[in-house]
């Protein structure tokens, strides 16, 4: 009986000490981690608007150029004549993809698309993060939905090239963009009318 009580006491004491360590680490790192995440979002927004910035003064440049607004619970970023941006998210082929999409002030054509996080196959699907691939979204009209066409075949103003050897990732990516654009842009239109 005595050793059973000892066992219980031991587990309780050890558990409390370890929990104490974790609470301390958590208390110390949580603000740093959320600051890092916020910094990533802000620098990606600036990148989407094409506003030049230095790694060390992201916050300052952001505060000078970008306004954060909210409509129907959706957060979006306004940068005057440079347009409007918002965060998108969805499932890619292998894992979640998220990032920032910037629209021109007319709210019907894309200004830029950036990716913060993706888990696609390195060297194949992950090529959606290449600047050359993302650049082709510039100026596309998304009002009737973006359409995927075989590599090198894009002609219309809403057509986007696929990637040779990795068709499924761009397909999932366009689906994410279309879903997010059609759900968020109406809210932004409403917010900007006021």
């Amino acid at each position, binding site marked *: 009986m005595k050793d059973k009580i000892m066992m219980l006491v031991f587990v309780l004491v*050890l558990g409390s000490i370890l929990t104490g360590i*974790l609470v301390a680490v958590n208390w110390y790192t949580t603000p*740093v*981690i959320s600051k890092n995440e916020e910094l*990533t979002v802000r620098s990606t927004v600036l990148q989407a608007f094409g506003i030049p910035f230095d790694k060390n003064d992201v916050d300052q440049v952001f505060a000078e150029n970008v306004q954060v607004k909210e409509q129907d619970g959706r957060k979006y970023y306004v940068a005057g004549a440079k347009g409007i941006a918002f965060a998108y998210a969805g499932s890619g082929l292998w894992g979640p993809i998220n990032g920032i999409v910037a629209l021109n002030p007319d709210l019907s054509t894309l200004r830029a698309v950036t990716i913060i996080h993706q888990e696609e196959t390195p060297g194949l699907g992950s090529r959606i993060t290449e600047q050359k691939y993302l650049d082709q979204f510039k100026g596309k009209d998304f009002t009737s939905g973006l359409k995927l066409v075989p590599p090198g075949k894009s002609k219309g103003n809403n057509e986007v090239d696929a990637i040779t050897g990795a068709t499924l990732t761009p397909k999932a990516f366009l689906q994410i963009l279309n879903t997010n654009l059609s759900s968020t842009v109406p809210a932004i239109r409403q917010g900007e009318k006021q």
Partner: protein
Amino acid sequence: MKQSVKVILNGLWKDQPIFSMVLGICSSLAVSNKVENAIAMGAGVTFALIGTAVLIAALRKLIPGRVRMIAYMIIIATFVIVVDRVLRAGFPDISKAIGPYVGLIITNCILMGRAEAFYVSNGVGLSILDAVFNGLGYSYTLIAVSVVRELLGFGTILGIQIMPATFTKWVIMAMAPGAFFIVSLFIWIMRTISKMDPDKAGGGM
């Protein structure tokens, strides 16, 4: 003194976690695609090993035999969570790249194996030494494998372009199959050099 030399040699060579004990293979396959990931993972495992070694060796006379596995698990888990939080706070890019594998250090057999085989029956000093050199043994394997994989898969080392611009990247090296090829080649080469034969008693070393 003699014992500490033995501990060092065991960690780096005779009982080296990867090619000799074949422990920690899962993470060494997963995070060895880039040198910086390998360094971060090696440092993380080494830190978790040292923390585990200190606590278990210090408490070895108090840990009741029946619950020792649970005690190892919660001690290891604590230090792994610390590693994960510190990486996320201090090195967000690396943390993003090796993501879930930091959490999986908990199930890394090197930690559990060393705890049961060494820390629970040795003093704090020797245990720390053992932890450091097992961690180094694991890290140098990861770095050796990742140098080959990053060089062939991306043409770079630590992000610095090494191969000429015309070099065709071996995409397979950046993916899972490349890890299997290089890790098994590494084990083969090291076992040949050390004349290790798993069929002989004592490994033939």
